[in-house]
């Protein structure tokens, strides 16, 4: 467990010295803010207006974008996490140290997850203050939304890390990760098209439903938190298995 913490600390400092991470954060926050203020969320059956058009003191539009935008940002953030270890051979060296693979997986996850949650906070809080200045913002929706987003990020990060562990090519890791998370995002779109039995299943499996209907609206539901925790745990276990399998190549 101690070693997971050491790994996380190393990863943190690696992210802080990575130009890619800074560019990613900048683009993510700017695009999200632009969408929130000016565009809204036009791709839903019931479109949400931008802040200036809608005039609602709520961050719902901002949170509604997250399942889709994070499906691109999280794989971009984690694409090198394992792929680079493999390409550079550091994976081989680490796996000969007295270290359990799950400790390494956990450390990498903690580093990426905590930083991405922090980035989400850097996005949400300034916007929340600006909305607060314009109208009557319910701050509990901000906090619950942020925590919900952080759980969403946890599940996305665990899955995207697995995609990085599948390959030594960062680009492949990114594309596979985005594809996987994009498909998860699409599940909710299919709910309306599927027969009723399947629709219930799709609804239950979709990360969107466990975030947009509850935490994004400021409603805390423990079942949704459990859903994300289970998805995260499944990702971490899969990642550990992938790492163990490197020994059998």
């Amino acid at each position, binding site marked *: 467990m101690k*070693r997971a913490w*050491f*790994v996380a600390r*190393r990863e943190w*400092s*690696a992210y802080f*010295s*990575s130009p890619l991470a800074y560019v990613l954060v900048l683009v993510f926050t700017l695009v999200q803010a632009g969408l929130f203020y000016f565009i809204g969320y036009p791709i839903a059956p019931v479109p949400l207006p931008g802040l200036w058009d809608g005039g609602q003191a709520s961050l719902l539009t901002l949170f509604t974008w997250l399942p889709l935008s994070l499906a691109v940002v999280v794989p971009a953030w984690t694409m090198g996490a394992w792929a680079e270890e493999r390409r*550079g*051979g*550091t*994976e*081989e*060296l*680490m*796996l*000969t*140290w*007295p*270290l*359990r693979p799950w400790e390494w997986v956990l450390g990498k996850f903690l580093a990426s997850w905590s930083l991405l949650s922090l980035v989400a906070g850097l996005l949400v809080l300034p916007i929340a203050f600006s909305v607060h200045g314009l109208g009557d913002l319910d701050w509990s929706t901000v906090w619950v939304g942020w925590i919900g987003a952080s759980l969403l990020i946890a599940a996305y990060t665990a899955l995207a890390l697995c995609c990085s562990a599948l390959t030594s090519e960062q680009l492949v890791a990114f594309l596979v990760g985005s594809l996987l998370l994009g498909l998860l995002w699409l599940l909710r779109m299919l709910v309306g098209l599927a027969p009723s039995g399947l629709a219930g299943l799709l609804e239950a499996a979709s990360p969107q439903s466990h975030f947009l209907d509850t935490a994004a609206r400021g409603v805390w539901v423990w079942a949704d938190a459990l859903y994300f925790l289970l998805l995260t745990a499944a990702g971490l276990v899969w990642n550990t298995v992938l790492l163990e399998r490197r*020994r*059998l*190549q």
Partner: protein
Amino acid sequence: MIAARGLCKHYGPVRAVQDVGFEIHRGEVVGFLGPNGAGKSTTMKMLTGYLVPDAGEVRIAGRPVLADDLAARDAIGYLPEHTPLYRGMRVDRYLEFVARMRGVARGARRAAVERVIERCDLAGYTRRRIQTLSKGYKQRVGLAQALIADPDVLILDEPTSGLDPAEIVRIRDLVVELSRDKTILLSTHILPEVEEVCRRALILAGGRLVADGDLLDLTGAQAARLALTLVGAETAVLEELRGIDGVLGVEGPVLGGQNRARYLIEVVDRFEVAERVLAKASKRSWRVCELRHETATLEQVFLKHTRGLAGVASPAEAAQ
């Protein structure tokens, strides 16, 4: 200290390593030789616990290297081929990280880092990012990393490959110094390096262990001949030499400069016969100015053992 038994590894249809077994005792420094693709790196990856063998077992200090308690891993310092390091990190931070990960106690970390920095001659480079270092210095960081937890066993995969001659000598000197208190397995293509550093060599070819022995025996077994040079051509010498027990045949005398005569003696056992030749020489008061073993060079031994087996292609190993 290192015991490998029946190691096998396949990469798909390619048999990279087949039934390799050996034992290396505490304090030995063993050279690991073989052509490219012979399975050296794969064997080392199994010895260090990175790869799980398809069959066979590795024990380090008596414990299975893949055992759950990770105790065997504590005893190993490993420098893989191509020296993988976190290139973006500073040397001192990297070594501190390795010390943490390898379980060096908090209070002892600083001392451990300082010790390896001194030992690998890295002082003055500790605040540099690894990616800015020359290949030789990167190699020293790689060695420092392997040494930081003070392991009893060092497994070094081609530590001098790609270095310039001065750096090769430095790394070699360091290995010699380390050999005083460590058990070392060292793979290399540079045969003189083995002769300088190691007492024993393992030769791998086509995934199999084709030779394992003391360097003196390996090279001596090739051609057992003695060269004897005397001052003054004495007619009786030839007769006397032929009469010595264990002598198979004598060539000569070949007359050289300054009135010297040289004889080449084919023998059964070059050590025993050399003693008898000297005894005879002192009894007959020959003026011996040279008696030496005509041994094969390690190159000859290497080529003899690996001829025809060299090109077992192992794409997986080439890719790594």
